[in-house]
């Protein structure tokens, strides 16, 4: 057995593959950690797999923890993307909290922050 082969086999056995199966946040708009000038009109989250829009929630809070989104939720992208309407955001830090239920009924959640600059 050549050395390359042994290393390849061991590498394959130990290398973590990243297949999908739970709804993880794959993309976010605005993105996590962004500091932007133009306030976004919506928050839009794309998951690694289709989610149940009925049981997937997003909430946007301002720096004081008050919920400020409009609550208008819509799904697109074959059930992978869920968007939430926002009012015109004044400068400040905002926290996005999400809870997703994927079509295989498993639940995931997370949160991140973005900032609107003056």
């Amino acid at each position, binding site marked *: 057995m050549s*050395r*390359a082969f*042994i*290393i390849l086999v*061991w*590498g394959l*056995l*130990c*290398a*973590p*593959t*990243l*297949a*999908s*199966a*739970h*709804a*993880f946040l794959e*993309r*976010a*708009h*605005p*993105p*996590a*950690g*962004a*500091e*932007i*000038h*133009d306030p976004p009109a919506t928050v839009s989250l794309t998951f*690694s*797999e*289709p989610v*149940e829009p*009925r*049981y997937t929630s997003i909430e946007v809070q301002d720096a004081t923890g008050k919920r400020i989104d409009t609550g208008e939720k819509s799904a697109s992208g074959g059930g992978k993307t869920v968007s939430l309407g926002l009012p015109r955001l004044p400068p400040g830090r905002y926290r996005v909290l999400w*809870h997703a*239920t*994927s*079509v*295989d*009924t*498993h*639940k995931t959640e997370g949160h991140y922050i*973005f900032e609107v600059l003056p």
Partner: protein
Amino acid sequence: MVSLDIVRIGVRGLHLAALLAAVGTLGFVWLVAPVGLHSRLIRMGRGFAAAALALGGIWFSLQAAVIAGTADWAEWAQALPVVGLETRFGHVLIARTCLLVLVVGLSGRTRFGQVYAFIAASLALASQGLVGHAGAADQAWGLATAEALHLLAAALWLGSLPPLLLCLLVLPAHGSREACERFSPLGLAAVLIIAATALAQAWPSIGSLPGMLGTDYGHVALMKLGLFILMLVCAAWNRLVLTDRLDTVGADRARYWMTVSVAVETGLGLLVVLAAGGLGSLPPAVHSVIVWPLHWTISAGALEDDDLRRVVALAIIALGVAVMMVACGALVLRSRVVTWPLALALAGWQGPTLSLFLVAAYPTSFQLSPTGFTASAIVRGDALFATHCTTCHGAQGYGDGPGAIGMRIRPADLTAGHLWDHSDGELFWWIGHGIRGPDDSLVMPGFEHQLDPMARWSLIDAIRARNAGAAMHTGGNWTNPLPAPDIPLVCRTSTADMLSQLQGRFVRVVSGSDSVSSADVVTVRLDRATGDAVPASGCQSASADAWLAYARIAGLEPERLGGTEFLVDDHGWLRALRRTGQTPDWDDGTTLSDTVRRLRTQPITGSFGGLHVHKQ
């Protein structure tokens, strides 16, 4: 809630078992067709279908409570129709209920009705793939089909065991032998399909050996595999030994043992199905945190050393011979006197050599960093490094902090190439739990109680970025594969929100200078956008951390970064750095295209932060 979870998982498993038995029994009537049992078997299949119907209803209600996230009766009652009508899970279970009602209704009637009942039951079973992990995955159709095949094959084998048992209990000697013989090619085909489809499904969910040994999902999968092998042992005994004896002399004994064996096999089958129900309810290993259960792991480094490999190969051969000798002694009993002591001696001689092959491992060794190597993680880690680590490791990480004076074991030089021999998971363990010296005392303290996990992962990004920057500063290149630190972007012409979303294209990351845009690459400016300043083509950083992190990996102070440029390849690896005024000038279109073309033909093979795989 834990106990209710177990009830739900159990009910899911039992529902599946009843469904398998219904399909198996109805198929048995048709495919094995034992004489004289027709109506009893039909009644049996119908009974299983009715049980599946009832258990499916309970599973649905319990799962609906989980989906709606409620533990309150009133909310739960309200959620039932919503889950039924508005989720994939609800749709599948309603369709399944209709099919099962058909099965119960049709199977009593004509022969035609029985075939339809079998088909309806099979469809109800096959839909399971749509509500499990497979249905949600990226290659959903492939995996759901594999799961449907897996379940149908399982129905033909496991589901046929109850009717087979009935045959053995009530048919005369000749009839039961005939039933067993007709069943066996069916069983064999089913076993082969089960094994193949299991492999196709298991690997994407388990992903790696650590995933198998270090997660609940992997453990249940191993348990299922073990039970499956025990079932095979029963089946082989039935087929190879007992079946032939069923209508010869001593038939009564053979039939007794066969009945026992098929009953045991049925029991094992039920456990397999319950384990399958457990797998469907657990997060797959690839999405679980791996807790490595052993104190060591096989060293990829040792595999690379020629001399060491020879030594280890000798040990493996010697131990192989020892195992063969033990087997030989077991088969030819008289030879035991010689072979077993010899085997012991061989094992004693070469066994310890195997330890050369092993390196220390920790529970977190195979965990992956959740930070995504972002610029913000690097900047956050850098700040923590300054407050927690510099006393020993020094402001630059050389291991020369004021606290290092007089220490018996010197703090490691974190800018040395040695850092890359360790995975993120190993470093994570050390930063959390400290490092022990030869006398088992802590030479470096652990920070588990002062820094939360995310802070510790960020520190690792910061150390790696600092190390890469030092290599660039002193040697003029990065010595290890390095991903471009990820940054949030504002783009005019692309939908990307992060640098990593530009993958598939080469990216030229520029700091400050105005560069000529080019068709081969996307240009990203590191200085944070101010109002309308976002370039008309390309993107601009939307975070002040970007500049600091890229200065770090360039090995420069932030105020000296201006004018430096980076080239990121289509897989997100950093490939080249160009300082101000250095030739060749990337603004010269052809130079940049040439570089991009050259780099495309030399993709990076290696890894970053995960398990250490050496470059060829």
